[in-house]
């Protein structure tokens, strides 16, 4: 099964990358963007999706500084269409 893991800096953790992008947007004429946070996306295919939380805890994310969210993309063939939540 195809899955997607979204990894974000935990709330309260300073994200200098997000801040830099937030400052760059108005400089390009895009006003009104706030609270930019930058994380990481891991796409993978797994035989046993029940293992995903353990994979996240142990390797994909560092739970001290990052939150993760697992999305299962049932039936999707990886054609880039919107994920089924």
């Amino acid at each position, binding site marked *: 099964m195809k899955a997607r893991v979204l990894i974000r800096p935990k709330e309260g*953790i*300073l994200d*200098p*990358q997000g801040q*830099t992008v937030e400052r760059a947007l108005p400089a390009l004429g895009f006003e009104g963007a706030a609270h930019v946070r930058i994380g990481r996306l891991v796409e993978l295919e797994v035989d046993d999706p029940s293992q995903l939380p353990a994979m996240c805890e142990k*390797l*994909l994310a*560092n739970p*001290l*500084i990052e939150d993760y969210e697992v999305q299962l993309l049932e039936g999707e063939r990886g054609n880039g269409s919107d994920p089924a939540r």
Partner: protein
Amino acid sequence: MKFGVVRFPGSCDEVDALRACRRFGDAELLWHADRDLRQVDAVVVPGGFSYGDYLRPGAIARFSPLMEAVAEFARDGGPVLGICNGFQVLCEAHLLPGALLPNTGLRFLFRQVEVVVENSRTPFTRACARADLLSIPVKHTTGRYYAPDEELDRMEEAGQVVLRYAPGENPNGSVRDVAGITNAAGNVMGLMPHPEHAVDPLRGPTGGAAIFSSLASSVPVAA
């Protein structure tokens, strides 16, 4: 006494670390794929980019066969020193509390810093006095130490914050100016500055020498 210096694919400071150790004792390299610590008395996990720093610095290296042996060595009370990437590896391995995040300035930093010895009653700082200033270089992109406030309070109370950047010297945004810490038992230390690059007067300040001499004098001589 004998130091063992770990070499991962992507390590780059292991030879300097080996030379620094050899000023104060015997030393040899330990290969990441081995499980044998060759009866060393202390382990140094050096700087560099272990396993390419893929995913997060230290995230992959912590699962190497040698690190399993290092973790066991640490649990048995053996002294382990992690420098820069080695610090990141020890945090990822949960041998040290907290984590290292990208520098607040986002850039690679390479400069000399002054660090203050906050606790001289550790195997890594016993050759120092409290409040001593050590001049040691830093060079990293991911050196912003972070631990939750409650954890930091507890660590400070227990004397686990061993080194702090001197006032105005914090190069990377580390919380409470933390530059080096130990675990609760006091036998595992990590620091972002590179003491192995600061042991030879020919190359500048020698603030790092005290770390290695402390470690060498902490190990009881075998009967």
